């Protein structure tokens, strides 16, 4: 898969209350969640961003609550990929489970600016900053996680496992 989009930069410790405030958690409808994505950080964010844009953030992105509504809101709003220096662990799991591509890289955070255009080849792990010409190679995800992603997320993996178990009964 090739992802191409422009960067929105965020600081360290962006928490899930900022990504999707709890006052909107009385629904799990992705379209409604997407309308409020990042609104306490920048009320205009959803209006300013475009589908395919990429989030580049500092340390501990997605810390706090386990709400899967946070990666869902970002994905539904049109964010195509998140690159951060590091992720909070529940957010990392959630993003993978819903099939939102997510990578760790300090270099990209340090060497990119808001508005730069990135091109990401998820299969080879090559990332190219088209604006400043810098290229990067990111660490591949662990085998098991790649297997989950290859199934199209955890839901599809579970469905296949259920089929396998049912056929053994």
């Amino acid at each position, binding site marked *: 898969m090739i992802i191409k989009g422009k960067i929105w930069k965020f600081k360290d410790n962006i*928490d899930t*209350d900022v990504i999707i*405030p709890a006052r909107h958690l*009385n629904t799990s409808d992705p379209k409604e969640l997407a309308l409020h994505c990042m609104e306490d950080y920048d009320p205009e964010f959803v209006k300013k961003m475009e589908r395919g844009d990429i989030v580049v953030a500092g340390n501990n992105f997605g810390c706090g609550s386990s709400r899967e509504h946070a990666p869902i809101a970002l994905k539904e709003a049109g964010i195509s990929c998140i690159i951060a220096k590091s992720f909070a662990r*529940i957010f990392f799991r959630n993003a993978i489970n819903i099939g939102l591509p997510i990578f760790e890289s300090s270099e990209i955070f340090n060497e990119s600016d808001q508005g730069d255009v990135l091109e990401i080849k998820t299969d080879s792990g090559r990332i190219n900053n088209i604006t400043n010409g810098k290229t990067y190679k990111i660490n591949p995800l662990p085998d098991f996680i790649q297997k989950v992603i290859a199934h199209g997320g*955890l839901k599809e993996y579970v469905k296949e496992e259920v089929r396998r178990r049912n056929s053994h009964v």
Partner: protein
Amino acid sequence: MGQTIVEKILTSHTDKKNFRIGEIINVRVDFAFANDVTAPLAIKDFKNSGAKDVFDKKKIGLIPDHFSPNKDIKSAEQCKILREFSHEYNIENYFELGKMGIEHALLPEQGLVLPGDIVIGADSHTPTSGALGAFATGVGSTDLGAIMTLGEMWLKVPETIKFIYSGKLNKWVSGKDLILYTIGKIGVDGANYKVMEFTGEAIKNLSIDSRFAMCNMAIEAGGKTGIIEPDEITLDYLKERAKRPYQIYKSDPDAFYEKVIEFDVNEIEPQVAFPHLPENAKPISQVGDIKIDQSVIGSCTNGRIEDLRVAADILKGKQVHSRVRLIIIPATQNIYSQAIKEGLIDIFISAGAAVSTPTCGPCLGGHMGILAEGEKAIATTNRNFVGRMGHPKSEVYLSNPAVAAASAIMGKIANPEEVI
């Protein structure tokens, strides 16, 4: 080389032999639970999975605690999904309003989570049960749906940081202060992906309620879980609660730790974490003059009987400041009932506090005590992120119940010594 308590629990729940730190393993889950925010998505996933039934009706908990009593039509619809699913699949541990308590206080109290268990909750404060010597960690809804279906989940074998607390606690210092102090030292990602194992003389003497408060906030340092080895205090708590047999594990003396961090608790004062991160902890003596509009005593961190007793000690015969709203929320119905028997609720109401049925409510800015623009609150809750308790321009300061009660009386953040 020996193993840590967590490595022993993981070993007993996986078929994988001789796993290494960092390796991904599949583990069997002893208890899985979700609330009215996270369960609806997990239930949808389960129903789409093609499975005929959940993995075990006894091992699933569904607790509508976040926006319940239903705060609006949308949350009523969310809670209805839990109720109908629980009836359809005969989920034994569905807790209807009236029996419901805040999940992380309720499940240990009901003896449903036990030492040696793997406990997975679709809520970030699941590590609370680590206070009983369980491996307890939070996940999102898709993971929980998968566990409801298969009874197992993947996880990366974590490294462990050992925290040793020596010395004797000062007056008005509780488990909440130890964990705020610790997060202040290591930062909000200081234990990211790692286990925080709490040990030492001060932990051995720590009450079970204070232990719950410590493990509860391991996530605020990014921790995968917090854990304390079971001892006499644990066994005493479990007596007449445990619903099934359990296994006690302890760390070997030669276990590997990624880091060992030592603190002398003699030097720790009551702590206050300033907006907008739990790591912004300061000792009460350095807080300065901060006027407050609201004080909240409750939540999965500090809504237990010990917390209410401490608050009552301070509020007895006193009045809440005329410009402050004090909201007190016992974490479970049993705690509420016990507080009535001990006369605590009477003290709170006489002092001018509002007492509520159990709910997460204001902690996450859900309902029952939302802040307006520019308002400040002191709270015994666990997070002080931007907009956490209401308006994005409101502020939350985190503390123990003694400080929250004293502050309610004084109208500003106060040392309990000032009012006693």
